[in-house]
């Protein structure tokens, strides 16, 4: 008569390789799966709990750290179960690492650059940056690449090595930034009044910062207009909205005040007696 219990025990005791039985492999799989499940649960709960409380980029780093730490603990705990000796692995790791390093230089370079990017943080998730001519929002910083969503909504993946070794322009690294306009008004208009109108509009705008103070002054006397320069500081997070909004308001208020923004124009003086045209040539009279 067949005993099912003995039968299952025999199957589980079946040696796959060396001393490692099917039972050991199952335990290994179970521990790894449990580690992945626990890591995911922790990540989801961390995201839910801390979403409103800490900055998105920092939360992302914390999530990744917790996720990979839990999985690493799971793997380290489970490896002896399938007969992998970690001490031996460490010794072999040096040689294997050297071989892998040579074989996959760019991957390793991207990996190291990615780690530096995550910890040095020249850019953070959500920042507006320009790297290698690509401008947009940083969507994610992975171990090997950085994902940028351009202002047109296009997905761009930049290898971390390139991000790390390139000049990075971070438009929002500082809490405030300045922008400027040059507004040309007609020579026949009162420039002092125009400056006053612009100053009132800037002062009334909530996000045109009070300090550092805005600078509004006649900058140059152009060919067709008196050029007034307007320099305004705004919070980095809203500077572009402020730039668009403010220029429109300035235009509207200048028009209301009767100040004109002229087209380019050139005054032509004719010599006395006018110009006589002979055989298609200009000849002074």
């Amino acid at each position, binding site marked *: 008569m067949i005993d099912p219990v003995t039968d299952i025990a025999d199957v589980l005791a079946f040696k796959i390789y060396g001393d490692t039985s099917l039972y050991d492999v199952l335990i290994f799989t179970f521990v790894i799966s449990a580690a992945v499940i626990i890591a995911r649960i922790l990540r989801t709960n961390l995201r839910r709990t*801390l979403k*409103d*409380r*800490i900055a998105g980029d920092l939360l992302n780093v914390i999530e990744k750290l917790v996720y990979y730490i839990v999985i690493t603990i799971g793997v380290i705990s489970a490896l002896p179960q399938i007969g992998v000796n970690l001490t031996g692995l460490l010794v072999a790791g040096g040689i294997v690492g050297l071989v892998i390093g040579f074989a996959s230089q760019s991957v390793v370079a991207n990996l190291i650059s990615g780690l530096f990017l995550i910890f040095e943080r020249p850019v953070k998730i959500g920042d507006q940056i320009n790297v290698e001519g690509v401008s947009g929002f940083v969507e994610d910083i992975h171990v090997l690449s950085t994902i940028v969503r351009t202002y047109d909504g296009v997905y761009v993946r930049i290898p971390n090595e390139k991000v790390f070794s390139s000049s990075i322009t971070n438009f929002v*690294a*500082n*809490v*405030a*930034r300045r922008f400027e306009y040059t507004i040309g008004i007609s020579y026949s208009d009162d420039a002092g009044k125009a400056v006053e109108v612009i100053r009132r509009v800037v002062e*009334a705008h*909530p*996000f045109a*910062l*009070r*300090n*550092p103070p805005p600078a509004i002054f006649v900058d140059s006397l152009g060919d067709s207009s008196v050029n007034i320069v307007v320099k305004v*500081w705004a*919070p980095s*997070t*809203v500077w572009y909205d402020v730039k668009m909004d403010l220029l429109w308001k300035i235009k509207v208020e200048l028009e209301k005040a009767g100040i004109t923004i002229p087209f380019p124009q050139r005054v032509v003086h004719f010599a006395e007696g006018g110009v006589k045209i002979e055989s298609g040539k200009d000849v002074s009279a």
Partner: protein
Amino acid sequence: MFGSYEFGVTLNIDGIKIETYKEDGFYVYHRRSETQEVRKVISFASRLLVNPSEPVRLPKEVTHYLLIELQEPVFIAPNDELTFYITFPVEFGVYVAGRKNVELLDSFTLTSPKYTLYGTPKDGVICRWWGSYVHRQIPEIDPYLEGIMKVNVKNICDDWVEVKNLVFDAYHMKIYYGDFASMHAAVKVINTKVAETSFIERPIMDGMKKAVELFSLRKLPVMRKAFVMEWGL
């Protein structure tokens, strides 16, 4: 003005009309003024709470700091202290009161918000700006626009200090309301350039009620209870 109202209420806050009513089987919240109109549908006939909220969120939340510029600077002698009253801008928070908790439904202000930078563009913080005179007694105010903050400044250093600006963190604010909104702040001057600002969980007058703390809902328990002004007073 501030308080708790049953569904079906009609309020008029200095020209801003707030109503809750039932329409086509929906429960509706409706706020309108000459320049703005907000209409929202609520799932049940909930109570409405109108409270003063942390005045750093309008027209858009870009910071959680409030900078009050003193129109008359205050000089404080070494190891001395001074208590005075200043004003702060009022922002109205309209909350729906659920069965277990409250949730922000709408917010508005009758003031004209203005923002400023405290510190440097690299290390400083963006703050909602407000200017206030210093008063020895509780001043006459327009409660639709301003609240009253009682401030106790303690100079613990050995130099005279001049205080021109006070910066407060909305995460620490404890706002109370009665006929007007109020806060009670403490400022510890560490040296001529550095001070610590915090709030006292006590109203400035008896009978005032505590307002809903919008920012504290997001606060982590490990956060500091004071803001350190390190870019000058």
